[in-house]
């Protein structure tokens, strides 16, 4: 048996600041959020991809034709978060959901503030709750909420 030895241990915090240039497509999407509108983009086959992508996933073509969508849409699937953590978008029970805005063929992941798990249903209609101060980021949508 080897003698028991002391294990070396030290705190190591590794932290860097990174930046991102978002390019013309994601840039326009984010600017749209600041202006309170949702923008998708038309794919080569005519589908509206939301959030927009720079290049067609099927043909690799450069995509340029933006298409306004929603802002209201349909929940395509969801998971209830009964005990939100500190970094979650809402500090009360909520749903993470895939939301397909009207006119879009794909869905985005966001939070739905439905009040209770019983109020959540696949197929339910929701609309964005916009922040008053918007900066051009995905969090400009505070969350989605059920349409009245």
């Amino acid at each position: 048996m080897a003698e028991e030895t002391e294990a070396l241990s030290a705190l190591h915090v590794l932290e860097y600041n990174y930046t991102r240039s978002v390019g013309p497509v994601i840039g326009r999407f984010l600017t749209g959020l600041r202006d309170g509108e949702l923008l998708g983009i038309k794919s080569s086959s005519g589908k509206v991809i939301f959030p927009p992508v720079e290049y067609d996933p099927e043909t690799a073509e450069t995509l340029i034709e933006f298409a306004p969508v929603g802002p209201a849409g349909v929940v395509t699937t969801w998971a209830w978060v009964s005990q939100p953590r500190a970094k979650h978008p809402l500090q009360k029970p909520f749903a993470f959901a895939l939301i397909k805005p009207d006119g879009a063929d794909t869905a985005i992941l966001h939070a739905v503030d439905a009040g209770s798990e019983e109020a959540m249903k696949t197929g339910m209609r929701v609309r964005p709750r916009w922040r008053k101060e918007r900066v051009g980021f995905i969090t400009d949508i505070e969350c989605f909420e059920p349409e009245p």
Partner: protein
Amino acid sequence: MELCGVIGIGQTKHDTARTDVSIAGLVREAALRALEDAGLTWSDIEAVVLGKAPDMFEGMMMPELYLADALGAVGKPLLRVHTAGSVGGSTAVVAAHHVQSGRFKRVLTVAYEKQSESNAMWALAPKIPFQQPIVAGAGGYFAPHIREYIRRSGAPSDIGIKVALKDRLNALKNPFAHLRMEGITLEQVAASPVLWDPIRFLECCPSSDGACAMVLASEDVATRNEPAWVLGTAVRSEPLGMAGRDEINPRAGRDCAEAVYAQAGIKDPRNDIDCVEMYVPFSWYEPMWLENLGFTEIGTGWRLTEDGVTALDGDLPVNMSGGVLSSNPIGASGMLRFAEAALQVRGRAGEHQVDGARIGLGHAYGGGSQFFAMWVVSGEKP
């Protein structure tokens, strides 16, 4: 082994910060130019090989997944290569092997770095507990090696300044180069501040955003496109901290050169090779690598620089494009060396073309002078 030819070459305009494009847009720009040069479209490409420096630089984990759409790689084999600063070179080697194996006829290979979004300096210098720190970035690491080279060789102290001036003048002939310093003089380089003794500011590479791409093809496809034929490829590495390791003249570099020359049938590199594009991030690495690559006796590399042998109109032009000293998108820097060698032997290097270049060497190194990648290309079919 099947023959492999370079039929498409593309690169971005390299710059401090390409804020006009995303990372996807950056690689796309180089890839589209390579495809256009090859006369191909996305659907012609059978596999994609991507290289970049460590993920921690931009803080984007496995960027090959995000970049699949931009590179037309959806549903195709897509391989990422990791070999630190030499990665652009070893990525091209892996792509060449894809063709030489006979498995693929048209392969797209791409390498990039977007240093404006990254933190390469500090990503190279984390002070990890219980490990010897690398000191601040690459310059701090390599300066003692350069001092040791000067001590061993007895080189005059102005050799590095001469290399820097030559490469900066060459860059003026390269429209894609990041640093284009009109009217640069020896006096300006000499007067620039010393950052890490003996390395002056103007003897250093910049931080660049940029990408490079090539299309490699099998013999039947390549023959139609005036290719650069790949005569040899080699990759070698050695540990960073091995006892008795010679960082000034690393064995991995010597072995890599020996292997690539043997494949390419090169007996006397000084006479058989017409031009060299090598990885020189700090000026003094030109004479150091000239020796490591066997172009001259140990201790005499600096004489080739001093005598003008490595100038664009010299007997053995080195870094015709302006080199890493003029553009340094780290992950792409190795591939840019390989691509320049291919451009030269295709006779398509424009203003920085070496007259009659037939055989070119592309060289890349990375880590602490421990990862090497090389290829030899020719304008004539072997």
